Protein backbone atom coordinates (compact mmCIF):
# COMPACT_ATOMS: atom_id res chain seq x y z
CA UNK A 1 0.00 0.00 0.00
CA UNK A 2 1.26 3.47 -0.82
CA UNK A 3 1.15 6.50 1.46
CA UNK A 4 -2.19 7.69 0.05
CA UNK A 5 -3.94 4.41 0.78
CA UNK A 6 -2.30 4.10 4.20
CA UNK A 7 -3.25 7.66 5.15
CA UNK A 8 -6.82 7.10 3.98
CA UNK A 9 -7.03 3.79 5.83
CA UNK A 10 -5.73 5.38 9.00
CA UNK A 11 -8.20 8.25 8.85
CA UNK A 12 -11.10 5.96 7.94
CA UNK A 13 -10.26 3.55 10.77
CA UNK A 14 -9.96 6.28 13.39
CA UNK A 15 -13.02 8.21 12.13
CA UNK A 16 -15.25 5.13 12.02
CA UNK A 17 -14.03 4.08 15.47
CA UNK A 18 -14.55 7.58 16.90
CA UNK A 19 -18.03 7.66 15.44
CA UNK A 20 -19.00 4.65 17.54
CA UNK A 21 -19.05 7.00 20.54
CA UNK A 22 -20.27 10.30 19.08
CA UNK A 23 -23.93 9.41 18.33
CA UNK A 24 -24.45 7.94 21.79
CA UNK A 25 -23.06 11.10 23.40
CA UNK A 26 -25.36 13.26 21.27
CA UNK A 27 -28.47 11.23 22.08
CA UNK A 28 -27.83 10.23 25.68
CA UNK A 29 -26.94 13.79 26.75
CA UNK A 30 -30.41 14.97 25.70
CA UNK A 31 -32.10 11.95 27.28
CA UNK A 32 -30.32 12.79 30.55
CA UNK A 33 -31.61 16.34 30.22
CA UNK A 34 -35.19 15.10 29.73
CA UNK A 35 -34.92 12.79 32.75
CA UNK A 36 -33.41 15.46 34.97
CA UNK A 37 -36.06 17.98 33.90
CA UNK A 38 -38.71 15.51 35.08
CA UNK A 39 -36.80 15.15 38.36
CA UNK A 40 -36.65 18.90 38.93
CA UNK A 41 -40.32 19.34 38.01
CA UNK A 42 -41.68 16.41 40.07
CA UNK A 43 -39.07 16.07 42.82
CA UNK A 44 -39.24 12.26 42.54
CA UNK A 45 -35.91 10.74 43.53
CA UNK A 46 -36.15 7.88 41.06
CA UNK A 47 -35.71 10.31 38.16
CA UNK A 48 -32.52 11.64 39.77
CA UNK A 49 -31.27 8.06 40.13
CA UNK A 50 -32.10 7.40 36.50
CA UNK A 51 -30.00 10.39 35.49
CA UNK A 52 -27.15 9.13 37.68
CA UNK A 53 -27.30 5.56 36.34
CA UNK A 54 -27.57 6.42 32.64
CA UNK A 55 -25.09 9.23 33.33
CA UNK A 56 -22.52 6.65 34.45
CA UNK A 57 -22.81 4.86 31.11
CA UNK A 58 -22.74 8.26 29.36
CA UNK A 59 -19.49 9.09 31.18
CA UNK A 60 -17.75 5.92 29.99
CA UNK A 61 -18.84 6.63 26.42
CA UNK A 62 -17.92 10.33 26.61
CA UNK A 63 -14.37 9.62 27.79
CA UNK A 64 -13.87 7.19 24.92
CA UNK A 65 -15.26 9.68 22.42
CA UNK A 66 -12.85 12.41 23.51
CA UNK A 67 -9.85 10.07 23.58
CA UNK A 68 -10.52 8.79 20.07
CA UNK A 69 -11.39 12.19 18.60
CA UNK A 70 -8.10 13.87 19.48
CA UNK A 71 -6.05 11.65 17.17
CA UNK A 72 -7.98 12.71 14.08
CA UNK A 73 -7.17 16.37 14.59
CA UNK A 74 -3.47 15.47 14.76
CA UNK A 75 -3.73 13.48 11.54
CA UNK A 76 -4.56 16.63 9.57
CA UNK A 77 -1.07 17.82 10.46
CA UNK A 78 0.86 14.56 10.34
CA UNK A 79 -0.70 12.71 7.39
CA UNK A 80 -2.57 15.44 5.49
CA UNK A 81 -0.17 18.39 5.58
CA UNK A 82 -0.78 19.51 1.98
CA UNK A 83 -4.49 19.30 2.61
CA UNK A 84 -4.00 21.35 5.80
CA UNK A 85 -2.10 24.00 3.89
CA UNK A 86 -4.42 24.05 0.86
CA UNK A 87 -7.68 24.43 2.79
CA UNK A 88 -6.54 25.18 6.35
CA UNK A 89 -7.64 28.81 6.14
CA UNK A 90 -11.25 27.65 5.73
CA UNK A 91 -11.25 24.27 7.45
CA UNK A 92 -9.13 25.30 10.42
CA UNK A 93 -11.54 27.79 12.01
CA UNK A 94 -14.56 25.49 12.53
CA UNK A 95 -12.23 22.66 13.55
CA UNK A 96 -10.55 24.84 16.17
CA UNK A 97 -13.89 26.05 17.52
CA UNK A 98 -15.03 22.42 17.68
CA UNK A 99 -11.92 21.54 19.66
CA UNK A 100 -12.55 24.38 22.10
CA UNK A 101 -16.21 23.41 22.44
CA UNK A 102 -15.37 19.76 23.00
CA UNK A 103 -12.48 20.17 25.37
CA UNK A 104 -13.19 23.28 27.35
CA UNK A 105 -16.96 23.68 27.43
CA UNK A 106 -18.05 20.06 27.37
CA UNK A 107 -15.26 18.69 29.57
CA UNK A 108 -15.84 21.37 32.23
CA UNK A 109 -19.58 20.79 32.26
CA UNK A 110 -19.20 17.01 32.29
CA UNK A 111 -16.99 17.38 35.37
CA UNK A 112 -19.67 19.51 37.05
CA UNK A 113 -22.32 16.98 36.01
CA UNK A 114 -20.59 14.12 37.83
CA UNK A 115 -19.20 15.95 40.85
CA UNK A 116 -21.83 18.62 41.30
CA UNK A 117 -24.77 16.60 42.58
CA UNK A 118 -24.20 17.56 46.24
CA UNK A 119 -22.67 20.96 45.51
CA UNK A 120 -25.21 22.52 43.16
CA UNK A 121 -28.89 23.26 43.60
CA UNK A 122 -31.39 21.14 41.67
CA UNK A 123 -31.89 23.83 39.07
CA UNK A 124 -28.15 24.58 39.01
CA UNK A 125 -27.38 20.96 38.19
CA UNK A 126 -30.12 20.89 35.57
CA UNK A 127 -28.48 23.90 33.89
CA UNK A 128 -25.17 22.01 33.89
CA UNK A 129 -26.83 18.96 32.29
CA UNK A 130 -28.43 21.24 29.69
CA UNK A 131 -24.97 22.70 29.06
CA UNK A 132 -23.54 19.21 28.49
CA UNK A 133 -26.31 18.45 25.99
CA UNK A 134 -26.09 21.79 24.17
CA UNK A 135 -22.27 21.65 24.18
CA UNK A 136 -22.34 18.21 22.54
CA UNK A 137 -24.70 19.42 19.82
CA UNK A 138 -22.57 22.54 19.19
CA UNK A 139 -19.47 20.42 19.01
CA UNK A 140 -21.18 18.34 16.30
CA UNK A 141 -22.33 21.50 14.52
CA UNK A 142 -18.80 22.85 14.12
CA UNK A 143 -17.28 19.61 12.94
CA UNK A 144 -20.12 19.23 10.44
CA UNK A 145 -19.60 22.80 9.20
CA UNK A 146 -16.00 21.77 8.52
CA UNK A 147 -17.13 18.51 6.91
CA UNK A 148 -19.93 20.20 4.96
CA UNK A 149 -17.36 22.49 3.38
CA UNK A 150 -15.43 19.43 2.18
CA UNK A 151 -18.61 18.31 0.39
CA UNK A 152 -19.66 21.73 -0.90
CA UNK A 153 -16.77 24.24 -0.76
CA UNK A 154 -18.46 27.64 -0.81
CA UNK A 155 -17.44 30.97 0.74
CA UNK A 156 -13.78 30.51 -0.25
CA UNK A 157 -11.51 31.52 -3.10
CA UNK A 158 -8.22 30.16 -4.43
CA UNK A 159 -5.29 32.53 -3.87
CA UNK A 160 -2.52 31.90 -6.44
CA UNK A 161 0.06 33.71 -4.30
CA UNK A 162 -0.39 31.59 -1.18
CA UNK A 163 -1.43 28.49 -3.15
CA UNK A 164 -4.40 27.81 -0.95
CA UNK A 165 -8.11 28.35 -0.57
CA UNK A 166 -8.94 31.39 1.57
CA UNK A 167 -12.19 32.45 3.20
CA UNK A 168 -14.07 35.05 1.19
CA UNK A 169 -17.42 34.80 2.99
CA UNK A 170 -17.40 33.18 6.44
CA UNK A 171 -21.19 33.38 6.74
CA UNK A 172 -21.46 31.26 3.57
CA UNK A 173 -19.16 28.67 5.19
CA UNK A 174 -21.21 28.85 8.38
CA UNK A 175 -24.60 28.56 6.72
CA UNK A 176 -23.53 26.11 4.05
CA UNK A 177 -26.76 24.24 3.16
CA UNK A 178 -24.91 20.91 3.03
CA UNK A 179 -23.49 21.45 6.52
CA UNK A 180 -26.90 22.40 7.92
CA UNK A 181 -28.57 19.36 6.34
CA UNK A 182 -25.79 17.05 7.53
CA UNK A 183 -25.93 18.50 11.04
CA UNK A 184 -29.63 17.93 11.62
CA UNK A 185 -29.45 14.46 10.01
CA UNK A 186 -26.44 13.46 12.10
CA UNK A 187 -27.74 14.70 15.44
CA UNK A 188 -31.11 13.04 14.74
CA UNK A 189 -29.20 9.80 14.14
CA UNK A 190 -27.56 10.41 17.52
CA UNK A 191 -30.97 10.77 19.18
CA UNK A 192 -32.00 7.43 17.70
CA UNK A 193 -28.77 5.85 18.95
CA UNK A 194 -29.21 7.20 22.48
CA UNK A 195 -32.85 6.14 22.54
CA UNK A 196 -32.06 2.66 21.26
CA UNK A 197 -29.36 2.28 23.91
CA UNK A 198 -31.82 3.13 26.70
CA UNK A 199 -34.66 1.13 25.10
CA UNK A 200 -32.57 -2.02 24.60
CA UNK A 201 -31.01 -2.08 28.07
CA UNK A 202 -34.37 -1.34 29.67
CA UNK A 203 -35.86 -4.20 27.62
CA UNK A 204 -33.10 -6.46 28.96
CA UNK A 205 -33.98 -5.49 32.54
CA UNK A 206 -37.67 -6.14 31.89
CA UNK A 207 -36.89 -9.54 30.36
CA UNK A 208 -34.79 -10.33 33.44
CA UNK A 209 -37.51 -8.87 35.68
CA UNK A 210 -34.98 -6.53 37.31
CA UNK A 211 -35.14 -2.81 38.09
CA UNK A 212 -38.69 -2.58 36.76
CA UNK A 213 -39.52 1.00 37.86
CA UNK A 214 -36.36 2.40 36.31
CA UNK A 215 -36.68 0.31 33.16
CA UNK A 216 -40.32 1.26 32.51
CA UNK A 217 -39.73 4.97 32.98
CA UNK A 218 -36.55 4.85 30.89
CA UNK A 219 -38.37 3.00 28.12
CA UNK A 220 -41.11 5.59 28.08
CA UNK A 221 -38.59 8.39 27.60
CA UNK A 222 -36.66 6.40 24.98
CA UNK A 223 -39.82 5.47 23.06
CA UNK A 224 -41.08 9.02 22.62
CA UNK A 225 -37.66 10.61 22.05
CA UNK A 226 -36.64 7.73 19.78
CA UNK A 227 -39.80 7.99 17.66
CA UNK A 228 -39.26 11.73 17.16
CA UNK A 229 -35.58 11.06 16.34
CA UNK A 230 -36.37 8.21 13.92
CA UNK A 231 -38.93 10.30 12.03
CA UNK A 232 -36.48 13.23 11.89
CA UNK A 233 -33.57 11.10 10.72
CA UNK A 234 -35.50 9.85 7.69
CA UNK A 235 -37.01 13.23 6.75
CA UNK A 236 -33.73 15.08 7.31
CA UNK A 237 -31.80 12.34 5.51
CA UNK A 238 -34.00 13.09 2.52
CA UNK A 239 -33.01 16.76 2.84
CA UNK A 240 -29.35 15.76 3.05
CA UNK A 241 -29.79 13.70 -0.14
CA UNK A 242 -31.52 16.63 -1.85
CA UNK A 243 -28.64 19.01 -1.09
CA UNK A 244 -26.18 16.36 -2.35
CA UNK A 245 -28.17 16.08 -5.58
CA UNK A 246 -27.56 19.80 -6.13
CA UNK A 247 -23.77 19.73 -5.81
CA UNK A 248 -22.60 16.10 -5.66
CA UNK A 249 -24.41 14.61 -8.62
CA UNK A 250 -21.85 11.84 -9.05
CA UNK A 251 -22.35 10.70 -5.46
CA UNK A 252 -26.12 10.50 -5.98
CA UNK A 253 -25.72 8.65 -9.29
CA UNK A 254 -23.31 6.19 -7.62
CA UNK A 255 -25.62 5.62 -4.65
CA UNK A 256 -28.38 4.79 -7.13
CA UNK A 257 -26.08 2.84 -9.49
CA UNK A 258 -27.62 4.98 -12.21
CA UNK A 259 -25.31 4.56 -15.17
CA UNK A 260 -27.44 6.24 -17.85
CA UNK A 261 -29.52 9.41 -17.63
CA UNK A 262 -33.20 8.48 -17.72
CA UNK A 263 -36.10 10.59 -18.92
CA UNK A 264 -37.57 12.58 -16.00
CA UNK A 265 -38.72 11.60 -13.47
CA UNK A 266 -36.10 8.89 -12.90
CA UNK A 267 -36.98 5.54 -11.38
CA UNK A 268 -35.53 4.34 -8.08
CA UNK A 269 -33.60 1.06 -8.03
CA UNK A 270 -34.82 -0.77 -4.94
CA UNK A 271 -32.30 -3.61 -5.22
CA UNK A 272 -29.92 -4.88 -7.88
CA UNK A 273 -26.34 -5.96 -8.45
CA UNK A 274 -24.21 -3.07 -9.71
CA UNK A 275 -21.53 -4.17 -12.20
CA UNK A 276 -18.69 -1.61 -12.26
CA UNK A 277 -16.82 -3.17 -15.15
CA UNK A 278 -19.86 -3.48 -17.38
CA UNK A 279 -21.36 -0.19 -16.12
CA UNK A 280 -24.78 -1.72 -15.63
CA UNK A 281 -26.96 -2.94 -12.80
CA UNK A 282 -28.09 -6.55 -13.06
CA UNK A 283 -31.44 -7.83 -11.75
CA UNK A 284 -32.54 -4.28 -10.95
CA UNK A 285 -35.95 -3.93 -9.31
CA UNK A 286 -37.12 -0.41 -10.06
CA UNK A 287 -39.90 1.82 -8.79
CA UNK A 288 -40.92 4.39 -11.41
CA UNK A 289 -40.66 8.14 -10.67
CA UNK A 290 -39.42 7.80 -7.09
CA UNK A 291 -35.76 8.83 -7.58
CA UNK A 292 -36.72 11.86 -9.66
CA UNK A 293 -39.26 12.95 -7.07
CA UNK A 294 -36.86 12.47 -4.13
CA UNK A 295 -33.74 14.05 -5.62
CA UNK A 296 -35.20 16.87 -7.74
CA UNK A 297 -38.59 17.32 -6.01
CA UNK A 298 -40.09 17.72 -9.46
CA UNK A 299 -41.40 15.57 -12.30
CA UNK A 300 -39.58 17.30 -15.14
CA UNK A 301 -35.95 17.58 -13.98
CA UNK A 302 -33.48 14.90 -15.03
CA UNK A 303 -31.11 13.09 -12.68
CA UNK A 304 -27.84 12.75 -14.61
CA UNK A 305 -26.38 9.26 -14.92
CA UNK A 306 -22.77 8.26 -14.27
CA UNK A 307 -21.77 8.05 -17.95
CA UNK A 308 -22.99 11.59 -18.68
CA UNK A 309 -21.26 12.89 -15.55
CA UNK A 310 -17.99 11.31 -16.70
CA UNK A 311 -18.34 13.13 -20.03
CA UNK A 312 -18.92 16.36 -18.08
CA UNK A 313 -15.82 15.62 -15.98
CA UNK A 314 -13.77 15.35 -19.20
CA UNK A 315 -14.91 18.83 -20.20
CA UNK A 316 -14.08 20.17 -16.76
CA UNK A 317 -10.61 18.58 -16.89
CA UNK A 318 -9.91 20.32 -20.21
CA UNK A 319 -11.17 23.61 -18.77
CA UNK A 320 -9.09 22.98 -15.65
CA UNK A 321 -5.99 22.56 -17.81
CA UNK A 322 -6.49 26.12 -19.04
CA UNK A 323 -6.60 27.24 -15.39
CA UNK A 324 -3.49 25.17 -14.61
CA UNK A 325 -1.51 26.68 -17.49
CA UNK A 326 -2.64 30.17 -16.54
CA UNK A 327 -1.69 29.58 -12.91
CA UNK A 328 1.78 28.38 -13.92
CA UNK A 329 2.30 31.54 -15.97
CA UNK A 330 0.89 33.75 -13.21
CA UNK A 331 3.25 32.20 -10.66
CA UNK A 332 6.11 33.33 -12.88
CA UNK A 333 4.59 36.79 -13.50
CA UNK A 334 2.71 37.66 -10.29
CA UNK A 335 1.78 41.20 -11.28
CA UNK A 336 0.00 40.28 -14.53
CA UNK A 337 -3.61 41.39 -14.10
CA UNK A 338 -4.78 39.76 -17.35
CA UNK A 339 -3.53 36.38 -16.19
CA UNK A 340 -5.31 36.82 -12.85
CA UNK A 341 -8.52 37.59 -14.71
CA UNK A 342 -8.06 34.57 -16.96
CA UNK A 343 -7.39 32.36 -13.94
CA UNK A 344 -10.55 33.58 -12.21
CA UNK A 345 -12.55 32.58 -15.29
CA UNK A 346 -11.37 28.95 -15.18
CA UNK A 347 -10.24 28.36 -11.57
CA UNK A 348 -13.47 26.52 -10.65
CA UNK A 349 -12.21 23.58 -12.68
CA UNK A 350 -8.56 23.68 -11.53
CA UNK A 351 -9.17 20.71 -9.22
CA UNK A 352 -10.36 18.58 -12.16
CA UNK A 353 -7.08 19.17 -13.98
CA UNK A 354 -5.20 18.11 -10.85
CA UNK A 355 -6.81 14.65 -11.17
CA UNK A 356 -4.35 14.11 -14.02
CA UNK A 357 -1.43 14.30 -11.56
CA UNK A 358 -2.11 10.68 -10.77
CA UNK A 359 -1.09 9.74 -14.30
CA UNK A 360 1.70 12.18 -15.22
CA UNK A 361 3.51 15.15 -13.61
CA UNK A 362 3.44 17.40 -16.72
CA UNK A 363 -0.32 17.40 -16.99
CA UNK A 364 -0.44 20.07 -19.69
CA UNK A 365 0.78 17.37 -22.07
CA UNK A 366 -1.91 14.86 -21.03
CA UNK A 367 -3.26 12.65 -23.80
CA UNK A 368 -6.96 12.08 -24.53
CA UNK A 369 -6.64 8.62 -23.02
CA UNK A 370 -5.22 10.05 -19.78
CA UNK A 371 -7.98 12.66 -19.63
CA UNK A 372 -10.53 9.87 -20.10
CA UNK A 373 -8.89 7.87 -17.27
CA UNK A 374 -8.90 10.89 -14.98
CA UNK A 375 -12.59 11.47 -15.76
CA UNK A 376 -13.35 7.81 -15.02
CA UNK A 377 -11.60 8.19 -11.66
CA UNK A 378 -14.41 10.54 -10.57
CA UNK A 379 -16.70 7.50 -10.22
CA UNK A 380 -16.72 6.31 -6.60
CA UNK A 381 -17.12 2.65 -5.61
CA UNK A 382 -20.68 2.11 -6.84
CA UNK A 383 -21.53 -1.30 -5.28
CA UNK A 384 -20.31 -0.23 -1.82
CA UNK A 385 -22.33 3.02 -1.92
CA UNK A 386 -25.38 1.31 -3.40
CA UNK A 387 -25.62 -1.29 -0.63
CA UNK A 388 -24.40 0.89 2.25
CA UNK A 389 -27.16 3.38 1.46
CA UNK A 390 -29.87 0.73 1.21
CA UNK A 391 -28.96 -1.00 4.47
CA UNK A 392 -28.83 2.42 6.20
CA UNK A 393 -32.28 3.37 4.88
CA UNK A 394 -33.73 -0.04 5.83
CA UNK A 395 -32.41 0.51 9.37
CA UNK A 396 -34.07 3.94 9.39
CA UNK A 397 -37.49 2.52 8.55
CA UNK A 398 -37.03 -0.27 11.10
CA UNK A 399 -36.36 2.38 13.77
CA UNK A 400 -39.62 4.14 12.95
CA UNK A 401 -41.53 0.84 13.24
CA UNK A 402 -39.80 -0.18 16.48
CA UNK A 403 -40.06 3.17 18.25
CA UNK A 404 -43.62 3.60 16.95
CA UNK A 405 -44.53 0.27 18.53
CA UNK A 406 -42.69 1.19 21.73
CA UNK A 407 -44.52 4.52 21.86
CA UNK A 408 -47.91 2.79 21.42
CA UNK A 409 -47.10 0.20 24.11
CA UNK A 410 -45.87 2.94 26.41
CA UNK A 411 -49.03 5.03 25.90
CA UNK A 412 -51.25 1.99 26.51
CA UNK A 413 -49.03 0.68 29.36
CA UNK A 414 -48.27 -2.60 27.62
CA UNK A 415 -44.48 -2.30 27.51
CA UNK A 416 -43.98 -5.50 29.49
CA UNK A 417 -46.74 -7.57 27.89
CA UNK A 418 -45.05 -8.79 24.70
CA UNK A 419 -41.71 -10.55 25.14
CA UNK A 420 -41.24 -10.59 21.37
CA UNK A 421 -41.22 -6.78 21.39
CA UNK A 422 -38.70 -6.73 24.26
CA UNK A 423 -36.43 -9.15 22.38
CA UNK A 424 -36.79 -7.04 19.20
CA UNK A 425 -35.77 -3.95 21.17
CA UNK A 426 -32.82 -5.76 22.74
CA UNK A 427 -31.47 -7.24 19.51
CA UNK A 428 -31.89 -3.94 17.65
CA UNK A 429 -29.19 -2.43 19.89
CA UNK A 430 -26.34 -2.55 17.31
CA UNK A 431 -28.44 -1.25 14.41
CA UNK A 432 -28.12 2.53 15.01
CA UNK A 433 -24.33 2.16 15.08
CA UNK A 434 -24.44 0.11 11.89
CA UNK A 435 -26.62 2.76 10.21
CA UNK A 436 -24.41 5.61 11.43
CA UNK A 437 -21.20 3.98 10.19
CA UNK A 438 -22.81 3.19 6.83
CA UNK A 439 -23.99 6.79 6.64
CA UNK A 440 -20.42 8.00 7.01
CA UNK A 441 -19.24 5.52 4.39
CA UNK A 442 -21.86 6.89 1.97
CA UNK A 443 -20.91 10.49 2.77
CA UNK A 444 -17.11 10.20 2.78
CA UNK A 445 -16.32 7.22 0.55
CA UNK A 446 -18.91 8.63 -1.85
CA UNK A 447 -16.92 11.88 -2.04
CA UNK A 448 -13.90 10.09 -3.54
CA UNK A 449 -11.69 10.83 -5.43
CA UNK A 450 -11.98 14.26 -3.78
CA UNK A 451 -10.83 15.31 -0.36
CA UNK A 452 -12.50 18.66 -1.13
CA UNK A 453 -15.23 18.13 -3.71
CA UNK A 454 -14.08 19.45 -7.08
CA UNK A 455 -11.16 21.36 -5.55
CA UNK A 456 -8.46 19.00 -4.29
CA UNK A 457 -8.02 15.31 -5.19
CA UNK A 458 -7.40 13.10 -2.16
CA UNK A 459 -4.02 11.83 -3.36
CA UNK A 460 -2.67 15.40 -3.51
CA UNK A 461 -3.61 16.13 0.11
CA UNK A 462 -1.29 13.66 1.82
CA UNK A 463 1.94 14.71 3.52
CA UNK A 464 5.30 14.21 1.91
CA UNK A 465 6.26 11.84 4.70
CA UNK A 466 7.45 8.25 4.59
CA UNK A 467 4.83 5.50 4.19
CA UNK A 468 6.52 3.53 7.00
CA UNK A 469 5.72 6.33 9.45
CA UNK A 470 2.04 6.13 8.56
CA UNK A 471 2.09 2.33 8.76
CA UNK A 472 3.78 2.50 12.18
CA UNK A 473 1.22 4.94 13.58
CA UNK A 474 -1.63 2.95 11.97
CA UNK A 475 -0.48 -0.20 13.78
CA UNK A 476 -0.16 1.87 16.96
CA UNK A 477 -3.74 3.12 16.58
CA UNK A 478 -5.09 -0.37 15.96
CA UNK A 479 -3.37 -1.73 19.08
CA UNK A 480 -4.30 1.26 21.25
CA UNK A 481 -7.90 1.41 20.02
CA UNK A 482 -8.34 -2.34 20.45
CA UNK A 483 -7.27 -1.91 24.08
CA UNK A 484 -9.74 0.97 24.48
CA UNK A 485 -12.50 -1.16 22.92
CA UNK A 486 -11.87 -3.94 25.44
CA UNK A 487 -11.92 -1.42 28.31
CA UNK A 488 -15.10 0.22 27.00
CA UNK A 489 -17.03 -3.02 26.51
CA UNK A 490 -15.81 -4.31 29.89
CA UNK A 491 -16.96 -1.18 31.73
CA UNK A 492 -20.29 -0.92 29.90
CA UNK A 493 -21.14 -4.58 30.47
CA UNK A 494 -19.98 -4.36 34.09
CA UNK A 495 -22.27 -1.44 34.96
CA UNK A 496 -25.21 -2.74 32.94
CA UNK A 497 -24.92 -6.09 34.75
CA UNK A 498 -24.56 -4.42 38.12
CA UNK A 499 -27.62 -2.35 37.34
CA UNK A 500 -28.66 0.91 38.97
CA UNK A 501 -28.89 -0.38 42.57
CA UNK A 502 -25.28 -1.50 42.85
CA UNK A 503 -23.93 1.25 40.58
CA UNK A 504 -25.45 3.94 42.79
CA UNK A 505 -25.06 2.04 46.06
CA UNK A 506 -28.74 2.16 47.02
CA UNK A 507 -32.05 0.78 45.68
CA UNK A 508 -33.42 3.12 43.04
CA UNK A 509 -37.05 2.15 43.51
CA UNK A 510 -38.30 3.78 46.69
CA UNK A 511 -41.10 2.04 48.61
CA UNK A 512 -44.33 2.38 46.66
CA UNK A 513 -42.64 2.95 43.32
CA UNK A 514 -43.69 -0.46 41.98
CA UNK A 515 -47.28 0.21 42.83
CA UNK A 516 -47.01 3.66 41.31
CA UNK A 517 -45.69 2.25 38.02
CA UNK A 518 -48.34 -0.45 37.88
CA UNK A 519 -51.13 2.02 38.55
Amino acid at each position, binding site marked *: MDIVELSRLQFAATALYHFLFVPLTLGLSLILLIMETVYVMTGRAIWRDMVKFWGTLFGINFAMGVATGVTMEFQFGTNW*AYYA*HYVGDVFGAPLAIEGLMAFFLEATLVGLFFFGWNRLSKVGHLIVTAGVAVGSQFSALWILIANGWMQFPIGAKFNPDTM*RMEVSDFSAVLFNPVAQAKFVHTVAAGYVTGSMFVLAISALYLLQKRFRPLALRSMTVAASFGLAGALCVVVLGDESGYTASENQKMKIAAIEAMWETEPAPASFTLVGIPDRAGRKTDYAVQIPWVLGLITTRSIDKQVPGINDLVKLAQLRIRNGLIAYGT*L*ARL*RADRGNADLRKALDAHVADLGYALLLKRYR*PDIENATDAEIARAADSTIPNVPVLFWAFRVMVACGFWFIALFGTAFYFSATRKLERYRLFLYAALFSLPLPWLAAELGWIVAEYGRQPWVIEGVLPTF*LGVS*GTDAHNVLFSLIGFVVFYSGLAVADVYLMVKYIRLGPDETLGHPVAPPGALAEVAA
Partner: protein
Amino acid sequence: MPARHRLGREIGALLCAKVILLGALYFLFFGPGHRAPHDAAATASHVMGER
Protein backbone atom coordinates in the same frame (compact mmCIF):
# COMPACT_ATOMS: atom_id res chain seq x y z
CA MET B 1 -0.94 9.26 55.76
CA PRO B 2 -4.09 11.36 55.41
CA ALA B 3 -6.16 10.48 52.35
CA ARG B 4 -5.91 14.04 51.06
CA HIS B 5 -2.09 13.96 51.03
CA ARG B 6 -2.08 10.57 49.33
CA LEU B 7 -4.47 11.87 46.67
CA GLY B 8 -2.23 14.92 46.12
CA ARG B 9 0.82 12.71 45.65
CA GLU B 10 -1.03 10.43 43.26
CA ILE B 11 -2.25 13.37 41.18
CA GLY B 12 1.26 14.86 41.19
CA ALA B 13 2.81 11.56 40.05
CA LEU B 14 0.22 11.19 37.31
CA LEU B 15 0.82 14.72 36.06
CA CYS B 16 4.58 14.10 36.00
CA ALA B 17 4.07 10.88 34.04
CA LYS B 18 1.80 12.73 31.64
CA VAL B 19 4.30 15.53 31.06
CA ILE B 20 7.08 12.98 30.44
CA LEU B 21 4.92 11.01 27.99
CA LEU B 22 3.80 14.12 26.10
CA GLY B 23 7.39 15.39 26.00
CA ALA B 24 8.58 12.05 24.65
CA LEU B 25 5.85 12.09 22.00
CA TYR B 26 6.82 15.62 20.98
CA PHE B 27 10.55 14.89 20.69
CA LEU B 28 10.06 11.51 19.02
CA PHE B 29 7.41 12.48 16.48
CA PHE B 30 6.48 16.17 16.41
CA GLY B 31 9.69 18.13 17.06
CA PRO B 32 11.09 20.56 14.47
CA GLY B 33 13.35 17.83 13.09
CA HIS B 34 10.31 15.77 12.09
CA ARG B 35 8.51 18.54 10.24
CA ALA B 36 8.57 18.92 6.50
CA PRO B 37 7.80 22.42 5.16
CA HIS B 38 4.26 22.72 3.86
CA ASP B 39 4.07 26.35 2.87
CA ALA B 40 3.13 28.12 -0.37
CA ALA B 41 6.44 27.19 -2.02
CA ALA B 42 6.16 23.53 -1.00
CA THR B 43 2.55 23.37 -2.18
CA ALA B 44 3.46 25.03 -5.50
CA SER B 45 6.20 22.44 -5.92
CA HIS B 46 3.84 19.61 -4.97
CA VAL B 47 0.92 20.75 -7.13
CA MET B 48 2.58 22.65 -9.98
CA GLY B 49 5.96 20.96 -10.07
CA GLU B 50 7.64 24.35 -9.46
CA ARG B 51 11.29 24.23 -8.44
